Protein backbone atom coordinates (compact mmCIF):
# COMPACT_ATOMS: atom_id res chain seq x y z
CA UNK A 1 0.00 0.00 0.00
CA UNK A 2 2.78 2.43 0.98
CA UNK A 3 4.67 1.69 -2.23
CA UNK A 4 1.57 2.21 -4.36
CA UNK A 5 0.78 5.51 -2.65
CA UNK A 6 4.42 6.60 -2.96
CA UNK A 7 4.08 6.07 -6.71
CA UNK A 8 0.79 7.96 -6.84
CA UNK A 9 1.84 10.94 -4.72
CA UNK A 10 5.50 11.03 -5.75
CA UNK A 11 6.54 11.30 -2.11
CA UNK A 12 6.34 9.31 1.09
CA UNK A 13 2.63 8.77 1.86
CA UNK A 14 2.77 10.54 5.21
CA UNK A 15 -1.02 10.69 5.48
CA UNK A 16 -1.44 6.96 4.99
CA UNK A 17 1.47 6.17 7.32
CA UNK A 18 -0.06 8.39 10.01
CA UNK A 19 -3.50 6.85 9.62
CA UNK A 20 -2.27 3.26 9.53
CA UNK A 21 0.07 3.81 12.48
CA UNK A 22 -2.90 4.12 14.79
CA UNK A 23 -5.02 1.16 13.74
CA UNK A 24 -7.74 1.79 16.30
CA UNK A 25 -8.28 5.34 15.16
CA UNK A 26 -8.17 4.29 11.51
CA UNK A 27 -10.83 1.66 12.16
CA UNK A 28 -13.02 4.15 13.99
CA UNK A 29 -12.60 6.74 11.24
CA UNK A 30 -13.33 4.28 8.44
CA UNK A 31 -16.33 2.94 10.37
CA UNK A 32 -17.61 6.49 10.83
CA UNK A 33 -17.31 7.32 7.14
CA UNK A 34 -18.84 3.95 6.23
CA UNK A 35 -21.75 4.63 8.58
CA UNK A 36 -22.33 8.07 7.09
CA UNK A 37 -22.14 6.59 3.58
CA UNK A 38 -24.60 3.88 4.60
CA UNK A 39 -26.95 6.50 6.00
CA UNK A 40 -26.86 8.46 2.76
CA UNK A 41 -27.29 5.32 0.64
CA UNK A 42 -30.29 4.19 2.67
CA UNK A 43 -31.97 7.58 2.47
CA UNK A 44 -31.26 7.86 -1.24
CA UNK A 45 -32.40 4.27 -1.78
CA UNK A 46 -35.72 4.85 -0.05
CA UNK A 47 -36.09 8.19 -1.82
CA UNK A 48 -35.38 6.40 -5.09
CA UNK A 49 -37.98 3.79 -4.24
CA UNK A 50 -40.45 6.55 -3.48
CA UNK A 51 -39.72 8.16 -6.83
CA UNK A 52 -39.88 4.86 -8.70
CA UNK A 53 -43.16 3.88 -7.10
CA UNK A 54 -44.55 7.38 -7.69
CA UNK A 55 -44.05 7.21 -11.42
CA UNK A 56 -44.56 3.44 -11.81
CA UNK A 57 -48.29 3.84 -12.69
CA UNK A 58 -47.33 5.96 -15.67
CA UNK A 59 -45.66 2.86 -17.17
CA UNK A 60 -49.08 1.15 -17.28
CA UNK A 61 -50.55 3.86 -19.50
CA UNK A 62 -49.91 4.95 -23.04
CA UNK A 63 -51.10 8.50 -23.59
CA UNK A 64 -49.65 11.88 -24.57
CA UNK A 65 -51.59 14.23 -22.34
CA UNK A 66 -53.35 13.94 -19.00
CA UNK A 67 -56.16 16.28 -18.01
CA UNK A 68 -56.73 16.38 -14.25
CA UNK A 69 -58.50 18.32 -11.57
CA UNK A 70 -56.48 21.32 -10.41
CA UNK A 71 -57.14 20.21 -6.82
CA UNK A 72 -55.40 16.86 -7.32
CA UNK A 73 -51.83 16.24 -6.25
CA UNK A 74 -50.50 13.34 -8.30
CA UNK A 75 -51.73 10.70 -10.73
CA UNK A 76 -52.68 8.38 -7.89
CA UNK A 77 -53.72 11.13 -5.46
CA UNK A 78 -56.25 12.85 -7.67
CA UNK A 79 -59.54 14.65 -7.30
CA UNK A 80 -62.37 13.68 -9.64
CA UNK A 81 -62.76 15.63 -12.82
CA UNK A 82 -65.97 16.24 -14.78
CA UNK A 83 -66.17 13.97 -17.78
CA UNK A 84 -67.56 16.89 -19.78
CA UNK A 85 -63.99 18.11 -20.27
CA UNK A 86 -63.27 14.91 -22.19
CA UNK A 87 -65.70 15.96 -24.88
CA UNK A 88 -64.37 19.50 -24.90
CA UNK A 89 -60.82 18.18 -25.26
CA UNK A 90 -61.86 15.86 -28.06
CA UNK A 91 -63.24 18.81 -29.97
CA UNK A 92 -59.84 20.47 -30.02
CA UNK A 93 -57.98 20.14 -33.33
CA UNK A 94 -55.05 17.69 -33.09
CA UNK A 95 -56.57 15.52 -30.36
CA UNK A 96 -56.93 12.01 -31.78
CA UNK A 97 -58.59 10.21 -28.90
CA UNK A 98 -59.55 10.41 -25.22
CA UNK A 99 -60.21 7.95 -22.43
CA UNK A 100 -61.33 8.51 -18.84
CA UNK A 101 -59.44 6.66 -16.17
CA UNK A 102 -60.68 5.89 -12.67
CA UNK A 103 -58.26 5.32 -9.82
CA UNK A 104 -58.97 4.07 -6.31
CA UNK A 105 -57.54 1.98 -3.51
CA UNK A 106 -59.16 -1.42 -3.16
CA UNK A 107 -58.54 -3.34 0.06
CA UNK A 108 -58.98 -7.11 0.17
CA UNK A 109 -58.02 -9.92 2.48
CA UNK A 110 -55.99 -12.92 1.37
CA UNK A 111 -56.99 -16.43 2.41
CA UNK A 112 -54.32 -16.38 5.13
CA UNK A 113 -55.88 -13.28 6.62
CA UNK A 114 -53.31 -10.84 5.26
CA UNK A 115 -54.85 -7.51 4.39
CA UNK A 116 -53.69 -6.10 1.05
CA UNK A 117 -54.35 -2.77 -0.55
CA UNK A 118 -54.44 -2.55 -4.35
CA UNK A 119 -54.13 0.62 -6.34
CA UNK A 120 -56.90 -0.01 -8.86
CA UNK A 121 -57.15 1.51 -12.32
CA UNK A 122 -60.47 1.38 -14.13
CA UNK A 123 -59.99 1.75 -17.88
CA UNK A 124 -62.05 1.31 -21.00
CA UNK A 125 -61.40 -2.36 -21.81
CA UNK A 126 -62.09 -1.72 -25.47
CA UNK A 127 -59.33 0.89 -25.83
CA UNK A 128 -56.02 -1.03 -25.74
CA UNK A 129 -54.25 1.92 -27.31
CA UNK A 130 -54.32 3.79 -23.99
CA UNK A 131 -52.47 1.15 -21.94
CA UNK A 132 -48.95 -0.27 -22.12
CA UNK A 133 -48.50 -3.05 -24.72
CA UNK A 134 -48.00 -5.83 -22.13
CA UNK A 135 -51.40 -4.92 -20.62
CA UNK A 136 -53.08 -4.24 -23.94
CA UNK A 137 -52.64 -7.93 -24.84
CA UNK A 138 -54.90 -9.02 -21.95
CA UNK A 139 -57.17 -6.01 -21.87
CA UNK A 140 -59.96 -7.68 -23.86
CA UNK A 141 -60.51 -10.20 -21.06
CA UNK A 142 -61.59 -7.39 -18.78
CA UNK A 143 -64.79 -6.89 -20.72
CA UNK A 144 -66.10 -9.78 -18.63
CA UNK A 145 -67.78 -8.62 -15.46
CA UNK A 146 -65.70 -8.49 -12.25
CA UNK A 147 -62.41 -9.47 -13.82
CA UNK A 148 -59.03 -7.86 -13.31
CA UNK A 149 -55.35 -8.02 -14.14
CA UNK A 150 -53.48 -8.53 -10.86
CA UNK A 151 -49.99 -7.36 -10.07
CA UNK A 152 -47.89 -10.46 -9.26
CA UNK A 153 -45.42 -8.20 -7.46
CA UNK A 154 -48.09 -7.35 -4.89
CA UNK A 155 -46.73 -7.46 -1.36
CA UNK A 156 -48.06 -10.35 0.68
CA UNK A 157 -49.36 -12.48 -2.17
CA UNK A 158 -48.25 -16.09 -1.43
CA UNK A 159 -45.77 -17.63 -3.91
CA UNK A 160 -48.19 -20.45 -4.82
CA UNK A 161 -50.80 -17.88 -5.83
CA UNK A 162 -48.18 -16.05 -7.90
CA UNK A 163 -47.27 -19.39 -9.56
CA UNK A 164 -50.94 -20.06 -10.34
CA UNK A 165 -51.43 -16.57 -11.72
CA UNK A 166 -48.39 -16.67 -13.97
CA UNK A 167 -49.37 -20.08 -15.30
CA UNK A 168 -52.80 -18.70 -16.24
CA UNK A 169 -54.95 -20.19 -13.48
CA UNK A 170 -57.55 -17.58 -12.45
CA UNK A 171 -57.38 -16.34 -8.89
CA UNK A 172 -60.55 -15.39 -7.10
CA UNK A 173 -60.67 -12.94 -4.27
CA UNK A 174 -63.22 -10.89 -2.44
CA UNK A 175 -63.25 -7.15 -2.05
CA UNK A 176 -65.95 -4.73 -0.98
CA UNK A 177 -68.29 -7.68 -0.58
CA UNK A 178 -67.96 -8.84 -4.19
CA UNK A 179 -65.92 -11.51 -5.90
CA UNK A 180 -63.22 -10.54 -8.34
CA UNK A 181 -61.42 -12.92 -10.70
CA UNK A 182 -57.91 -12.27 -11.82
CA UNK A 183 -57.70 -13.22 -15.50
CA UNK A 184 -54.22 -11.98 -16.23
CA UNK A 185 -51.14 -10.51 -14.63
CA UNK A 186 -48.68 -7.67 -14.72
CA UNK A 187 -45.55 -7.16 -12.64
CA UNK A 188 -45.16 -3.75 -11.04
CA UNK A 189 -44.74 -4.26 -7.30
CA UNK A 190 -45.74 -2.43 -4.17
CA UNK A 191 -45.08 1.15 -3.33
CA UNK A 192 -45.68 3.58 -0.50
CA UNK A 193 -49.38 4.04 -1.28
CA UNK A 194 -50.44 0.46 -1.92
CA UNK A 195 -49.17 -3.11 -1.81
CA UNK A 196 -49.72 -3.67 -5.51
CA UNK A 197 -51.82 -2.73 -8.51
CA UNK A 198 -54.94 -3.92 -10.20
CA UNK A 199 -56.44 -3.06 -13.58
CA UNK A 200 -60.13 -3.51 -14.24
CA UNK A 201 -62.59 -2.27 -16.79
CA UNK A 202 -64.24 1.02 -15.90
CA UNK A 203 -67.53 -0.85 -15.47
CA UNK A 204 -66.01 -3.29 -12.95
CA UNK A 205 -64.29 -0.40 -11.21
CA UNK A 206 -67.56 1.46 -10.75
CA UNK A 207 -69.18 -1.72 -9.43
CA UNK A 208 -66.52 -2.09 -6.75
CA UNK A 209 -66.32 1.63 -5.96
CA UNK A 210 -69.99 2.38 -5.65
CA UNK A 211 -69.49 5.93 -4.47
CA UNK A 212 -67.78 6.80 -7.75
CA UNK A 213 -69.66 7.88 -10.84
CA UNK A 214 -68.83 7.36 -14.48
CA UNK A 215 -69.25 11.11 -15.00
CA UNK A 216 -66.36 11.90 -12.64
CA UNK A 217 -63.19 10.03 -13.59
CA UNK A 218 -59.84 10.62 -11.89
CA UNK A 219 -58.15 11.82 -15.08
CA UNK A 220 -58.77 12.11 -18.78
CA UNK A 221 -56.07 10.64 -21.01
CA UNK A 222 -55.57 12.08 -24.47
CA UNK A 223 -53.69 11.00 -27.55
CA UNK A 224 -52.64 13.56 -30.12
CA UNK A 225 -52.86 13.02 -33.84
CA UNK A 226 -49.79 11.66 -35.61
CA UNK A 227 -47.23 14.37 -36.33
CA UNK A 228 -48.80 16.92 -34.00
CA UNK A 229 -46.70 18.42 -31.22
CA UNK A 230 -47.84 17.43 -27.74
CA UNK A 231 -46.74 20.78 -26.34
CA UNK A 232 -48.84 22.61 -28.90
CA UNK A 233 -51.96 20.66 -27.94
CA UNK A 234 -51.22 21.12 -24.24
CA UNK A 235 -51.01 24.87 -24.77
CA UNK A 236 -54.16 24.85 -26.85
CA UNK A 237 -56.10 22.94 -24.20
CA UNK A 238 -54.76 25.11 -21.41
CA UNK A 239 -56.28 28.07 -23.23
CA UNK A 240 -59.54 26.27 -23.91
CA UNK A 241 -60.16 24.69 -20.51
CA UNK A 242 -60.69 26.63 -17.27
CA UNK A 243 -57.31 26.83 -15.55
CA UNK A 244 -58.92 27.30 -12.15
CA UNK A 245 -60.38 23.80 -12.12
CA UNK A 246 -58.51 21.82 -14.75
CA UNK A 247 -54.81 21.27 -15.37
CA UNK A 248 -53.48 19.97 -18.65
CA UNK A 249 -50.03 18.39 -18.73
CA UNK A 250 -48.04 16.19 -21.03
CA UNK A 251 -47.59 12.74 -19.45
CA UNK A 252 -43.86 13.43 -19.11
CA UNK A 253 -44.41 16.72 -17.30
CA UNK A 254 -47.09 15.17 -15.11
CA UNK A 255 -44.65 12.46 -13.98
CA UNK A 256 -42.02 15.11 -13.20
CA UNK A 257 -44.59 17.18 -11.29
CA UNK A 258 -45.55 14.08 -9.27
CA UNK A 259 -41.88 13.50 -8.36
CA UNK A 260 -41.47 17.11 -7.37
CA UNK A 261 -44.64 17.03 -5.26
CA UNK A 262 -43.63 13.83 -3.47
CA UNK A 263 -40.08 15.01 -2.71
CA UNK A 264 -40.87 18.57 -1.68
CA UNK A 265 -44.42 18.66 -0.36
CA UNK A 266 -45.02 15.26 1.16
CA UNK A 267 -43.49 14.56 4.60
CA UNK A 268 -41.94 11.32 3.34
CA UNK A 269 -39.92 13.06 0.64
CA UNK A 270 -38.86 15.85 2.97
CA UNK A 271 -37.87 13.36 5.69
CA UNK A 272 -35.72 11.31 3.32
CA UNK A 273 -34.14 14.47 1.90
CA UNK A 274 -33.38 15.58 5.44
CA UNK A 275 -31.92 12.11 6.12
CA UNK A 276 -29.50 12.55 3.23
CA UNK A 277 -28.48 15.93 4.63
CA UNK A 278 -27.99 14.40 8.09
CA UNK A 279 -25.88 11.59 6.64
CA UNK A 280 -23.62 14.10 4.92
CA UNK A 281 -23.42 16.16 8.12
CA UNK A 282 -22.52 13.09 10.21
CA UNK A 283 -19.80 12.20 7.70
CA UNK A 284 -18.43 15.75 7.74
CA UNK A 285 -18.31 15.86 11.53
CA UNK A 286 -16.69 12.43 11.87
CA UNK A 287 -14.00 13.08 9.27
CA UNK A 288 -13.34 16.57 10.62
CA UNK A 289 -12.99 15.19 14.13
CA UNK A 290 -10.58 12.48 13.00
CA UNK A 291 -8.44 14.76 10.83
CA UNK A 292 -8.49 17.60 13.32
CA UNK A 293 -7.32 15.28 16.12
CA UNK A 294 -4.73 13.80 13.81
CA UNK A 295 -3.34 17.24 12.95
CA UNK A 296 -3.31 18.19 16.66
CA UNK A 297 -1.50 14.96 17.54
CA UNK A 298 1.19 15.58 14.95
CA UNK A 299 1.68 19.31 15.43
CA UNK A 300 5.22 18.75 16.79
CA UNK A 301 6.12 16.67 13.77
CA UNK A 302 4.56 19.15 11.38
CA UNK A 303 6.49 21.95 13.12
CA UNK A 304 9.65 19.93 12.54
CA UNK A 305 8.84 19.60 8.86
CA UNK A 306 8.13 23.33 8.73
CA UNK A 307 11.53 24.00 10.28
CA UNK A 308 13.10 21.73 7.68
CA UNK A 309 11.58 23.86 4.93
CA UNK A 310 8.38 22.09 3.97
CA UNK A 311 5.82 24.63 2.77
CA UNK A 312 2.12 24.90 3.59
CA UNK A 313 1.12 23.04 0.43
CA UNK A 314 2.93 19.94 1.71
CA UNK A 315 0.83 19.89 4.88
CA UNK A 316 -2.37 20.50 2.95
CA UNK A 317 -1.36 17.57 0.75
CA UNK A 318 -0.92 15.32 3.79
CA UNK A 319 -4.31 16.24 5.26
CA UNK A 320 -6.08 15.87 1.91
CA UNK A 321 -4.30 12.55 1.38
CA UNK A 322 -5.80 11.37 4.66
CA UNK A 323 -9.22 12.71 3.68
CA UNK A 324 -9.15 10.87 0.34
CA UNK A 325 -7.99 7.63 1.95
CA UNK A 326 -10.78 7.83 4.55
CA UNK A 327 -13.31 8.58 1.81
CA UNK A 328 -12.27 5.54 -0.25
CA UNK A 329 -11.86 3.17 2.69
CA UNK A 330 -15.17 4.30 4.21
CA UNK A 331 -17.12 4.26 0.95
CA UNK A 332 -16.35 0.62 0.04
CA UNK A 333 -17.80 -1.03 3.18
CA UNK A 334 -20.64 1.52 3.17
CA UNK A 335 -21.53 0.48 -0.38
CA UNK A 336 -21.30 -3.26 0.34
CA UNK A 337 -23.46 -3.07 3.47
CA UNK A 338 -25.96 -0.84 1.65
CA UNK A 339 -26.34 -3.37 -1.19
CA UNK A 340 -27.03 -6.06 1.43
CA UNK A 341 -29.56 -3.88 3.25
CA UNK A 342 -31.27 -2.96 -0.02
CA UNK A 343 -31.71 -6.67 -0.78
CA UNK A 344 -33.07 -7.25 2.73
CA UNK A 345 -35.53 -4.35 2.45
CA UNK A 346 -36.70 -5.46 -0.98
CA UNK A 347 -37.48 -8.93 0.31
CA UNK A 348 -39.29 -7.58 3.37
CA UNK A 349 -41.16 -4.59 1.90
CA UNK A 350 -41.23 -5.24 -1.84
CA UNK A 351 -40.19 -1.63 -2.38
CA UNK A 352 -38.27 -1.02 -5.61
CA UNK A 353 -34.87 -0.37 -4.00
CA UNK A 354 -32.00 -0.70 -6.42
CA UNK A 355 -28.32 0.27 -6.22
CA UNK A 356 -27.87 2.36 -9.36
CA UNK A 357 -24.32 2.85 -10.67
CA UNK A 358 -25.03 6.56 -11.05
CA UNK A 359 -26.14 6.85 -7.42
CA UNK A 360 -23.07 4.94 -6.22
CA UNK A 361 -20.75 7.23 -8.21
CA UNK A 362 -22.61 10.30 -6.94
CA UNK A 363 -22.35 9.15 -3.33
CA UNK A 364 -18.65 8.36 -3.80
CA UNK A 365 -18.01 11.84 -5.20
CA UNK A 366 -20.08 13.28 -2.36
CA UNK A 367 -18.08 11.30 0.20
CA UNK A 368 -14.88 12.52 -1.40
CA UNK A 369 -16.11 16.11 -1.36
CA UNK A 370 -17.32 15.87 2.26
CA UNK A 371 -14.00 14.40 3.39
CA UNK A 372 -12.07 17.06 1.48
CA UNK A 373 -14.16 19.85 3.03
CA UNK A 374 -13.55 18.34 6.48
CA UNK A 375 -9.84 18.14 5.67
CA UNK A 376 -9.81 21.77 4.55
CA UNK A 377 -11.40 22.84 7.85
CA UNK A 378 -8.97 20.67 9.83
CA UNK A 379 -5.97 22.33 8.16
CA UNK A 380 -6.73 25.51 10.09
CA UNK A 381 -5.00 23.84 13.04
CA UNK A 382 -1.77 23.67 11.06
CA UNK A 383 -1.22 27.32 11.87
CA UNK A 384 -0.49 26.24 15.45
CA UNK A 385 2.60 24.33 14.32
CA UNK A 386 5.32 26.87 15.14
CA UNK A 387 8.83 25.64 14.39
CA UNK A 388 10.31 28.24 16.75
CA UNK A 389 8.80 26.28 19.64
CA UNK A 390 10.85 23.23 18.78
CA UNK A 391 14.10 24.44 20.32
Amino acid at each position, binding site marked *: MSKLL*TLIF*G*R*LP*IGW*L*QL*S*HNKGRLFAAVSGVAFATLLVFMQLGIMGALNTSTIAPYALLDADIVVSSEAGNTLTDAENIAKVWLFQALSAPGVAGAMPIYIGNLPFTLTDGTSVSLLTFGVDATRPGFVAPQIARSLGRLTLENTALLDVGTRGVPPDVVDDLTSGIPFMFEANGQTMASVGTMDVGGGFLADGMLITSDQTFLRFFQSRSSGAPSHILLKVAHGVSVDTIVARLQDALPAASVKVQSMQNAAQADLSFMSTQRPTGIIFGFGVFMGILVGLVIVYQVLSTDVAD*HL*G*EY*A*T*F*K*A*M*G*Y*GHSFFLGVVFEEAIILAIFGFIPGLIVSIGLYAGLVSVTGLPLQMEAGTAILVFLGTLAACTVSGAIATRRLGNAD*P*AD*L*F
Partner: protein
Amino acid sequence: MRTGSDLIAVRGLNHFFGTGDARKQAIFDIDLSIKRGSLTILMGPSGSGKTTLLTLISALREVQAGNVRLLDAELNGADEALLVHLRQRLGFIFQAHNLHESLTATQNVLMGLELHGRANALKQLNAAHHMLDILGLADRRDYLPEKLSGGQKQRVAVARALVSNSEVVLADEPTAALDKVSGQTVVELLKELGRARGTTTVMVTHDPRILELADRIIRLEDGRIVADEIVSDRGKDTE
Protein backbone atom coordinates in the same frame (compact mmCIF):
# COMPACT_ATOMS: atom_id res chain seq x y z
CA MET B 1 35.80 23.69 -0.49
CA ARG B 2 35.57 27.44 0.07
CA THR B 3 35.83 28.38 3.73
CA GLY B 4 36.27 31.54 5.69
CA SER B 5 33.47 33.76 4.30
CA ASP B 6 30.63 34.82 6.61
CA LEU B 7 27.64 32.58 6.31
CA ILE B 8 25.79 34.19 9.17
CA ALA B 9 26.11 37.89 9.98
CA VAL B 10 24.21 39.45 12.88
CA ARG B 11 24.13 43.21 13.46
CA GLY B 12 22.47 45.10 16.31
CA LEU B 13 20.09 42.25 17.04
CA ASN B 14 17.49 42.80 19.77
CA HIS B 15 14.56 40.58 20.54
CA PHE B 16 11.57 40.88 22.84
CA PHE B 17 8.92 38.54 24.14
CA GLY B 18 5.45 39.57 25.26
CA THR B 19 3.64 42.87 24.90
CA GLY B 20 2.77 45.83 27.06
CA ASP B 21 3.85 45.58 30.67
CA ALA B 22 4.82 41.94 30.13
CA ARG B 23 7.25 42.84 27.34
CA LYS B 24 10.68 41.48 28.16
CA GLN B 25 13.91 41.80 26.23
CA ALA B 26 15.69 38.50 25.62
CA ILE B 27 18.51 39.56 23.24
CA PHE B 28 20.52 42.79 23.57
CA ASP B 29 22.51 44.39 20.72
CA ILE B 30 24.21 41.27 19.46
CA ASP B 31 26.80 41.55 16.68
CA LEU B 32 28.21 38.34 15.37
CA SER B 33 29.69 36.79 12.24
CA ILE B 34 30.08 33.08 11.72
CA LYS B 35 32.42 31.68 9.10
CA ARG B 36 31.63 29.02 6.58
CA GLY B 37 32.87 25.58 7.63
CA SER B 38 33.24 26.41 11.31
CA LEU B 39 31.81 24.67 14.35
CA THR B 40 30.54 27.28 16.78
CA ILE B 41 29.21 26.43 20.20
CA LEU B 42 26.77 28.68 22.05
CA MET B 43 26.96 28.26 25.80
CA GLY B 44 25.31 29.93 28.72
CA PRO B 45 22.97 29.37 31.61
CA SER B 46 19.28 28.79 31.22
CA GLY B 47 17.50 31.94 30.02
CA SER B 48 20.68 33.46 28.66
CA GLY B 49 19.14 33.79 25.18
CA LYS B 50 21.19 31.17 23.34
CA THR B 51 18.17 29.25 22.06
CA THR B 52 16.42 32.48 21.06
CA LEU B 53 19.56 33.52 19.17
CA LEU B 54 19.67 30.10 17.49
CA THR B 55 16.02 30.37 16.33
CA LEU B 56 16.61 33.91 15.06
CA ILE B 57 19.64 33.02 12.94
CA SER B 58 17.93 29.89 11.65
CA ALA B 59 14.95 31.73 10.14
CA LEU B 60 12.53 30.09 12.56
CA ARG B 61 11.65 33.25 14.46
CA GLU B 62 10.80 36.67 13.07
CA VAL B 63 13.57 39.24 13.41
CA GLN B 64 12.11 42.25 15.26
CA ALA B 65 15.04 44.65 15.49
CA GLY B 66 18.49 44.55 13.93
CA ASN B 67 19.74 42.55 11.00
CA VAL B 68 20.45 38.89 10.42
CA ARG B 69 21.99 37.82 7.13
CA LEU B 70 21.81 34.10 6.50
CA LEU B 71 23.22 32.57 3.33
CA ASP B 72 23.36 36.08 1.79
CA ALA B 73 19.70 36.79 2.52
CA GLU B 74 18.38 39.41 4.94
CA LEU B 75 15.94 37.85 7.39
CA ASN B 76 14.49 41.07 8.78
CA GLY B 77 11.33 41.62 6.74
CA ALA B 78 11.78 38.44 4.70
CA ASP B 79 8.57 36.90 3.41
CA GLU B 80 7.45 33.36 4.20
CA ALA B 81 8.52 32.01 0.82
CA LEU B 82 12.10 33.21 1.33
CA LEU B 83 12.17 31.81 4.86
CA VAL B 84 10.94 28.42 3.62
CA HIS B 85 13.55 28.46 0.86
CA LEU B 86 16.33 29.30 3.32
CA ARG B 87 15.25 26.62 5.78
CA GLN B 88 15.58 24.06 3.00
CA ARG B 89 19.30 24.82 2.97
CA LEU B 90 19.63 24.24 6.71
CA GLY B 91 19.83 21.13 8.83
CA PHE B 92 18.19 21.04 12.23
CA ILE B 93 18.96 18.79 15.16
CA PHE B 94 16.58 19.23 18.06
CA GLN B 95 17.15 18.23 21.66
CA ALA B 96 13.89 16.28 21.53
CA HIS B 97 14.64 14.35 18.35
CA ASN B 98 11.20 15.22 16.87
CA LEU B 99 11.10 12.15 14.67
CA HIS B 100 7.83 11.35 12.99
CA GLU B 101 6.33 8.47 14.98
CA SER B 102 4.71 6.86 11.94
CA LEU B 103 7.86 6.77 9.82
CA THR B 104 10.70 4.28 10.02
CA ALA B 105 14.26 5.46 10.62
CA THR B 106 14.92 5.38 6.87
CA GLN B 107 11.69 7.25 6.05
CA ASN B 108 12.48 9.90 8.66
CA VAL B 109 15.89 10.43 7.07
CA LEU B 110 14.31 10.47 3.60
CA MET B 111 12.18 13.41 4.71
CA GLY B 112 15.40 15.42 4.78
CA LEU B 113 15.93 14.55 1.12
CA GLU B 114 12.41 14.60 -0.33
CA LEU B 115 12.33 18.26 0.54
CA HIS B 116 14.50 18.80 -2.52
CA GLY B 117 12.34 16.66 -4.81
CA ARG B 118 12.18 12.98 -5.54
CA ALA B 119 13.92 12.87 -8.89
CA ASN B 120 16.03 9.85 -8.02
CA ALA B 121 14.26 7.86 -5.33
CA LEU B 122 16.77 5.01 -5.35
CA LYS B 123 19.71 7.34 -4.97
CA GLN B 124 17.95 9.06 -2.09
CA LEU B 125 17.23 5.74 -0.43
CA ASN B 126 20.88 4.74 -0.72
CA ALA B 127 21.96 8.10 0.72
CA ALA B 128 19.58 7.65 3.67
CA HIS B 129 20.87 4.15 4.32
CA HIS B 130 24.46 5.33 4.03
CA MET B 131 23.92 8.08 6.59
CA LEU B 132 22.22 5.69 8.99
CA ASP B 133 25.11 3.25 8.52
CA ILE B 134 27.66 5.94 9.37
CA LEU B 135 25.76 6.66 12.57
CA GLY B 136 25.73 2.98 13.51
CA LEU B 137 22.10 2.32 12.73
CA ALA B 138 22.48 -0.12 9.83
CA ASP B 139 20.43 -2.72 11.67
CA ARG B 140 17.74 -0.22 12.68
CA ARG B 141 16.83 1.18 9.25
CA ASP B 142 13.26 -0.12 9.25
CA TYR B 143 12.50 0.49 12.91
CA LEU B 144 9.81 2.92 13.98
CA PRO B 145 10.96 5.51 16.56
CA GLU B 146 8.99 3.75 19.31
CA LYS B 147 11.29 0.74 18.85
CA LEU B 148 14.47 2.80 19.13
CA SER B 149 16.31 3.93 22.26
CA GLY B 150 16.70 7.64 23.02
CA GLY B 151 20.23 7.67 21.66
CA GLN B 152 19.24 5.84 18.51
CA LYS B 153 16.42 8.29 17.90
CA GLN B 154 18.80 11.19 18.29
CA ARG B 155 21.19 9.61 15.80
CA VAL B 156 18.31 9.24 13.31
CA ALA B 157 17.55 12.94 13.82
CA VAL B 158 21.21 13.73 13.18
CA ALA B 159 21.13 11.61 10.01
CA ARG B 160 18.01 13.49 8.87
CA ALA B 161 19.74 16.84 9.38
CA LEU B 162 22.95 15.84 7.64
CA VAL B 163 21.76 13.65 4.76
CA SER B 164 20.93 16.52 2.43
CA ASN B 165 24.37 18.12 2.75
CA SER B 166 22.93 21.23 4.38
CA GLU B 167 25.07 24.34 4.21
CA VAL B 168 24.35 25.14 7.85
CA VAL B 169 23.52 22.76 10.67
CA LEU B 170 21.78 24.22 13.72
CA ALA B 171 21.69 21.98 16.73
CA ASP B 172 20.23 22.24 20.20
CA GLU B 173 21.92 19.91 22.66
CA PRO B 174 22.40 17.22 19.99
CA THR B 175 24.50 15.02 22.27
CA ALA B 176 22.37 15.28 25.39
CA ALA B 177 20.73 11.92 24.81
CA LEU B 178 23.85 10.20 23.54
CA ASP B 179 26.51 8.22 25.33
CA LYS B 180 30.08 9.46 25.19
CA VAL B 181 31.06 7.45 22.11
CA SER B 182 27.91 8.30 20.14
CA GLY B 183 28.17 11.97 21.11
CA GLN B 184 31.78 12.04 20.00
CA THR B 185 30.83 10.35 16.71
CA VAL B 186 28.15 12.91 15.97
CA VAL B 187 30.32 15.91 16.71
CA GLU B 188 33.28 14.48 14.79
CA LEU B 189 30.92 13.92 11.88
CA LEU B 190 29.82 17.54 12.01
CA LYS B 191 33.45 18.58 12.21
CA GLU B 192 34.35 16.38 9.25
CA LEU B 193 31.46 17.83 7.22
CA GLY B 194 32.85 21.27 7.97
CA ARG B 195 36.24 20.24 6.67
CA ALA B 196 35.05 18.28 3.64
CA ARG B 197 31.97 20.21 2.49
CA GLY B 198 32.26 23.54 4.25
CA THR B 199 29.20 22.82 6.36
CA THR B 200 28.79 25.39 9.12
CA THR B 201 27.54 24.18 12.48
CA VAL B 202 26.07 26.31 15.24
CA MET B 203 25.35 24.28 18.33
CA VAL B 204 23.85 25.01 21.71
CA THR B 205 25.35 22.63 24.25
CA HIS B 206 26.34 22.19 27.85
CA ASP B 207 28.32 19.07 27.07
CA PRO B 208 31.93 19.67 28.16
CA ARG B 209 33.05 16.55 26.28
CA ILE B 210 32.72 18.25 22.92
CA LEU B 211 34.09 21.69 23.72
CA GLU B 212 37.54 20.58 22.59
CA LEU B 213 36.16 19.96 19.09
CA ALA B 214 34.74 23.48 18.69
CA ASP B 215 36.34 26.14 16.49
CA ARG B 216 34.70 28.88 18.46
CA ILE B 217 32.87 29.09 21.78
CA ILE B 218 30.45 31.95 22.45
CA ARG B 219 29.09 32.47 25.95
CA LEU B 220 25.85 34.35 26.54
CA GLU B 221 24.41 35.72 29.74
CA ASP B 222 21.19 37.72 30.08
CA GLY B 223 20.87 38.07 26.35
CA ARG B 224 24.36 39.43 25.77
CA ILE B 225 27.59 37.90 24.50
CA VAL B 226 29.94 37.88 27.46
CA ALA B 227 32.76 35.81 25.98
CA ASP B 228 33.77 34.88 22.45
CA GLU B 229 36.67 32.42 22.37
CA ILE B 230 38.29 31.53 19.06
CA VAL B 231 39.71 28.04 19.42
CA SER B 232 40.96 27.50 15.86
CA ASP B 233 41.48 29.52 12.69
CA ARG B 234 38.21 28.13 11.35
CA GLY B 235 36.34 29.91 14.09
CA LYS B 236 38.04 33.25 13.63
CA ASP B 237 35.59 36.11 13.27
CA THR B 238 36.23 37.97 10.03
CA GLU B 239 35.68 41.32 11.69
